[in-house]
């Protein structure tokens, strides 16, 4: 490209001129850069965002830990007199009451749908349609009963199925052993049945297939994805239902109808279509009952309700109130039904069905048995005794679960657990005593009966309180926290914007905008902490931190507000200036409108599930549009054309040479964007999508030739990357010194590539072909990644300790001869090294003569000083790139190469556009550049084979360099996180390049002025070549620029995050909230955390280089 700084920068020469100017001052540049305040400010802003995210998450994402334990038939839960009795064959814990159960799940069967009110004259479309249930309940009150079946939020189908089978309260994230599948790993009803040799037959919604793989004796799945399709699932079930029932080859038959739910989504409940659907269900139930035998229990249940618009997912009354209908041809109930149908929690179904079928209750169940179903037909005492037995077993099981759970997680409050424990043990003890007394026949009937009743109510109390404790911590949104988190994030975004504008304007910025707000925050935190101490409440760290964040935000805005009048007055004193300022501001606003418009589109896209699903295409589309807009705008402003009056006929314009370069760069960018689309992973929401062929590891390729070809291609490209980085460094003269970092770049980089290549070779070789070498391979698979880890960390450490890549030639000591430190280079490079010093020798001599006039003796030539900051960043990025490539599948290294190429092209476009636009403010990075940088980051999130859903995470990354065991969770989490957020990491660390690149690519414009021999001119010439040293020239501006860049980056990131958060809040009742929006929010917020930390690291690296440069200068001066 055009960046032809020729390996030598005259900053050394210039530096002596400075020394002369500044006399005997110790530091070369008298003013120091403000490093810590900048980092502190950015860290503070990050903290504000983090606390917002934390607060929101605590209100929105409820988590629970899944236990791997499962119940078994031999568990000692049965109380004394019964535990020695032998059970009938096929029963566990208690004798089974029914050998067969039919569970009909009608998705979204709201309670009102099942209610029948004959008095109603004009029923709504969804009312009075299930007349058959009413008929059964009134004609056979001891055989049938309707319940209000209260679901626990989140009322999404998948969570409800989990609840209906495990008896637990599934939250959005059930932290289990394996994220990779949706399959339920907790102990559940189906697993228990299968374990005890029962046959489970399923028909309907194919969600079950993913949840219970290989659990069904026979299954008929139908696609549930298309919400518009009302009939496929239902008609499919009806085709198989009756033959299956008649065949009798089942113990539990589940039929999951989806039509009612889909009808709700499509039309809403208040629609004639709903009436048709419910009538169909009514007929289905009528004929199903005809097919049932006497030993069969029929359960008709809705998994959740729906709102007036037909949606569900939240916790409103209409969503949580579903219907449950129980029926059997043998009498079930000893008593008449209550007037108003009883409300029972959904989880109660699990222990009830388990004990009715005579299988153990699933381990994690927290439901309570529906005791009236166990009454039998004996007298009241034996009935109560039977009920007590099931309660006893149930309570013991719940207590066992609570105990195991409290051992692994602390989210259930300890005092309440203690209280529950007491309640439980007293009830159990009393029950055992009572049984013992009864055996000795010491109690009379009336006394016994009242005692039994009170004991039953105590067991009930225990079970209900236990459930309440769990519900409280697992299944409630906290709207206040959600809104609070939203507000914090929004305010932090605003702060970023305001501060990025303000940082350049004011002098006492850090004092008033960092120190005071921090003090505010600190004071609030301390006060809050004291309040906790005095009131003896449990310390909620999250609330403490977020209140501190809110206080410091308030402090900032207070300070900002205080400034406003001052500035207004200043402007007011100069009215003409003000008007110009207004017009300028208008123009600035218009210039801002394009990139901000694109950002707005991007944020808006977060609110539509389709756009979130299609984001892999949306991000490159917007990036391409942004760049095209930039070109269009430059063209419109006439920046691309040769200025008029340049031997051009009027009315005809042609492009400058630089414009053609720019257009070429844009073409390359567009090609990169398109090519990166070949690496996409698929989501299950897009049915026809084919995942990229590059995603699976090479080892899975059958075709050996293709495997070898791909392998060679990947290795060649890797070597190409090293070559490109090295030649870039050489081009700017950063490869001349013999510093450890430079040596590492020379020798360490090829070594890293070699290790990666060897690892790929070993990992992708066929398992069996190696035969005897198997053990060696096992070692190599571990050793090579560790070699890469080691080398990369050595490289990074070296970079931190000694980040200078400058080769200084001090003519004060060795006059004349040029030392070439590097021997094995091609001849052209030798020539280059010989020629450049000769060019500059002449300049040095002229400089010398000038300096000698001012009684100074010698000059210093510094290779690579002009790109010292970028060189460090480039080396760091390359090392990180190697590490991240190692964590991905082999062929994704192609995507990484595209990433580096695209970042390079983007930087160049940014630089070109700036120089063409004649930007007068070199220290501020335009919004366009920041937004395009971030769009590229999210584009490559998808192009490295990721999707914001859990099953798409590359879990293999956790085992690069490890055999299948990890002692801690931290290391695999770091590896998988680095794999997932690879592009976020690279782009965030590389962010300071946006500021540095225009300086690095400064045009050498000295040729024109060379003819003039005046010393003043020459000084200017030298000025032109300063490159990054221009940043050092005004350290305050440099630090402000870094701060501003960081704030802009955080603003754009924060705006995306805010959009995600708002989408999650507003659409929390949306059908797709748990499938699309919540995972998207989670990935976006984790990406934000990773990006912001990496941004801080990148900026700190620049600061570290700056320190080293200062030290270098002072050392030079002392010599």
């Amino acid at each position, binding site marked *: 490209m055009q960046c032809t700084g020729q390996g030598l920068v005259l900053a050394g020469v210039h530096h002596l001129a400075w020394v002369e100017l500044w006399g005997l001052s110790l530091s070369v540049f008298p003013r120091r850069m403000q490093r810590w305040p900048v980092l502190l400010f950015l860290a503070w802003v990050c903290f504000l965002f983090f606390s917002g995210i934390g607060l929101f998450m605590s209100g929105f994402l409820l988590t629970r830990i899944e236990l791997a334990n499962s119940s078994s038939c031999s568990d000692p839960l049965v109380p004394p007199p019964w535990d020695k009795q032998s059970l009938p064959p096929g029963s566990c814990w208690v004798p089974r009451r029914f050998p067969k159960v039919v569970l009909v799940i009608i998705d979204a069967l709201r309670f009102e749908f099942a209610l029948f009110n004959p008095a109603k004259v004009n029923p709504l479309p969804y009312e009075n349609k299930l007349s058959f249930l009413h008929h059964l309940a009134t004609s056979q009150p001891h055989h049938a009963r309707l319940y209000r079946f209260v679901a626990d939020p989140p009322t999404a189908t998948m969570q409800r199925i989990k609840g209906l089978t495990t008896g637990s309260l599934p939250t959005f994230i059930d932290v289990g052993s394996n994220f990779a599948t949706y399959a339920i790993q907790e102990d559940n009803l189906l697993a228990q049945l299968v374990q005890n040799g029962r046959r489970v037959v399923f028909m309907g919604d194919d969600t079950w297939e993913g949840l219970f793989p290989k659990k069904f004796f026979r299954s008929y799945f139908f696609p549930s994805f298309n919400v518009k399709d009302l009939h496929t699932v239902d008609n499919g079930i009806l085709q198989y239902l009756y033959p299956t029932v008649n065949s009798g080859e089942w113990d539990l038959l589940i039929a999951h109808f989806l039509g009612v739910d889909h009808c709700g989504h499509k039309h809403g409940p208040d629609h004639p279509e709903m009436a048709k659907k419910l009538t169909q269900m009514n007929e289905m139930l009528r004929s199903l009952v005809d097919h049932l035998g006497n030993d069969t229990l029929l359960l008709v249940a809705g998994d959740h309700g729906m709102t007036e618009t037909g949606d569900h997912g939240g916790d409103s009354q209409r969503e949580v109130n579903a219907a449950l209908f129980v029926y059997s041809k043998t009498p079930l109930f000893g008593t008449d039904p209550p007037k108003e149908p009883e409300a029972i929690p959904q989880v109660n179904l699990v222990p009830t069905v388990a004990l009715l079928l005579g299988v153990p209750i699933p381990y994690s169940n927290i439901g309570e048995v529906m005791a009236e179903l166990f009454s039998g037909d004996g007298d009241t005492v034996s009935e109560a005794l039977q009920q007590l037995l099931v309660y006893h077993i149930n309570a013991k099981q719940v207590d066992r679960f609570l105990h195991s759970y409290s051992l692994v997680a602390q989210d259930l409050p300890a005092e309440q657990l203690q209280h529950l424990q007491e309640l439980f043990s007293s009830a159990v003890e009393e029950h055992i005593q009572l049984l013992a007394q009864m055996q000795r026949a010491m109690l009379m009937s009336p006394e016994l009966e009242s005692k039994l009743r009170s004991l039953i109510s105590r067991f009930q109390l225990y079970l209900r309180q236990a459930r309440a404790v769990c519900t409280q911590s697992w299944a409630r949104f906290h709207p206040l926290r959600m809104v609070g988190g939203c507000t914090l994030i929004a305010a932090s975004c605003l702060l970023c914007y305001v501060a990025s504008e303000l940082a350049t304007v004011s002098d006492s910025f850090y004092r008033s905008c960092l120190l005071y707000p921090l003090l505010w925050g600190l004071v609030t935190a301390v006060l809050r902490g004291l309040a906790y101490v005095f009131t003896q409440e449990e310390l909620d760290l999250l609330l403490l931190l977020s209140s501190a964040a809110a206080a410091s935000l308030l402090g900032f805005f207070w300070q900002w507000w205080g400034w406003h009048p001052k500035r207004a007055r200043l402007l007011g004193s100069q009215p003409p200036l003000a008007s110009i300022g207004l017009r300028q501001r208008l123009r600035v606003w218009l210039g801002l409108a394009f990139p901000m418009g694109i950002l707005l589109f991007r944020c808006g896209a977060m609110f539509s599930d389709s756009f979130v699903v299609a984001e892999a295409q949306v991000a490159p589309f917007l990036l391409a549009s942004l760049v095209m807009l930039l070109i269009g705008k430059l063209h419109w402003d006439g920046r691309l054309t040769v200025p008029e009056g340049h031997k051009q006929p009027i009315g005809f314009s042609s492009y400058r040479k630089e414009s053609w370069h720019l257009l070429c760069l844009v073409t390359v960018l*567009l090609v990169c964007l398109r090519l990166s689309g070949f690496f996409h992973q698929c989501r299950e929401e897009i049915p026809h999508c084919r995942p990229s062929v590059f995603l699976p590891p090479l080892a899975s390729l059958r075709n050996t030739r293709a495997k070898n070809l791909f392998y060679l291609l990947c290795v060649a490209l890797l070597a190409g990357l090293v070559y490109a980085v090295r030649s870039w460094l050489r081009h700017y003269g950063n490869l001349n010194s013999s510093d450890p970092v430079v040596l590492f770049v020379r020798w360490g980089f090829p070594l890293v590539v070699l290790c990666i290549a060897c690892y790929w070779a070993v990992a992708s070789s066929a398992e069996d072909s190696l035969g005897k070498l198997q053990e060696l391979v096992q070692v190599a698979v571990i050793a090579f990644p560790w070699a890469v880890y080691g080398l990369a960390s050595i490289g990074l450490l070296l970079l931190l300790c000694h980040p200078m890549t400058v080769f200084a030639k001090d003519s004060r000591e060795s006059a004349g001869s040029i030392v070439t430190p590097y021997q094995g280079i091609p001849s052209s490079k030798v020539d280059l090294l010989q020629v450049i010093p000769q060019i500059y020798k002449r300049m040095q001599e002229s400089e010398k003569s000038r300096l000698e006039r001012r009684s100074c003796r010698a000059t210093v030539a510094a290779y690579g000083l002009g790109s010292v900051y970028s060189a460090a960043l480039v080396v760091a990025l390359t090392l990180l790139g190697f590490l991240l490539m190692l964590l991905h599948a082999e062929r994704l290294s192609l995507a990484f190469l595209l990433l580096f190429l695209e970042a390079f092209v983007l930087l160049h476009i940014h630089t070109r556009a700036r120089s063409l636009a004649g930007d007068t403010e070199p220290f501020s990075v335009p919004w366009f550049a920041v937004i395009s940088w971030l769009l590229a980051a999210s584009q490559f999130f998808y192009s490295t084979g990721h999707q914001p859903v859990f099953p798409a995470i590359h879990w293999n990354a956790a085992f690069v360099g490890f055999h299948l065991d990890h002692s801690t969770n931290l290391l695999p989490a770091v590896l998988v996180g680095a794999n997932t957020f690879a592009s976020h990491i690279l782009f965030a660390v590389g962010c300071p390049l946006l500021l540095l690149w225009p300086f690095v690519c400064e045009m050498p414009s000295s040729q024109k002025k060379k003819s003039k021999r005046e010393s003043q001119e020459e000084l200017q010439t030298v000025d032109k070549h300063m490159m990054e040293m221009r940043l050092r020239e005004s350290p305050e501006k440099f630090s402000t620029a870094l701060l501003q860049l960081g704030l802009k980056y955080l603003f754009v990131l924060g705006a995306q995050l805010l959009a995600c958060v708002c989408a999650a809040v507003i659409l929390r009742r949306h059908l797709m909230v748990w499938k699309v929006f919540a995972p998207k929010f989670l990935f976006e917020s984790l990406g934000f955390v990773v990006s912001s930390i990496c941004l801080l690291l990148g900026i700190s690296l620049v600061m570290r280089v700056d320190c080293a440069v200062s030290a270098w200068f002072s050392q030079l001066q002392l010599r």
Partner: protein
Amino acid sequence: MREAELRKLLAANLLCAVSIVLTALVPALFLDGFSVLGTHLTWLCVCSVCVSVLNVTLCLILKPNPSSKRSSLSNKISRFLKCCIYFFMSCILFHAIIVLYGAPLIESVTETFLFSVLLSTFTTLQCLCLLGPNIQAWIRVFSRNGAMSIWENSLQITTMCSILGGWFGAFPIPLDWDRPWQVWPISCSLGATFGYMAGLIIAPLWIHWNRKQLTYKSR
């Protein structure tokens, strides 16, 4: 003078807009089962051909850009050939850009190409009619203060509106509404068409409202 020209422009633009509406309606009388959505490719062809024919005729009749030089027949033929080549190249260029923007590469090549022909008709053809095969003049027209007559102003507006329309047309594609017009490239070509028609109508109005500010440099 200005008023008369503006009226001419208005008439020409309205004619164009009406012709596009007619392309959607009239072929249904002759062709069985013709509809804009159902037989979209046919409509794309019909629309492109109609708009190009109309534009060329209008250009020949109205002569908005009277060339001062009397040119010979061979000169004219070479100009015409050049125009054809330019048009074809612009189709290829649009096709490439659309593919780079994310359109399918191998499947539905016909659709993409016809869409790029439509876009070329709305943009390049107008430029060719008005400015001739002269890239430098094109570059000049599409810059601030580059327009030298109301025709060129109108050209600016219609071109930008068509491209913007096509761009916005891509937005509904990912939505899960299952509508027939969400299929590639229907929404985009409809967007471009609506954009073009909007541009045709906006241009005279905009020029009318801004007639005080518009001072054209003399050639």
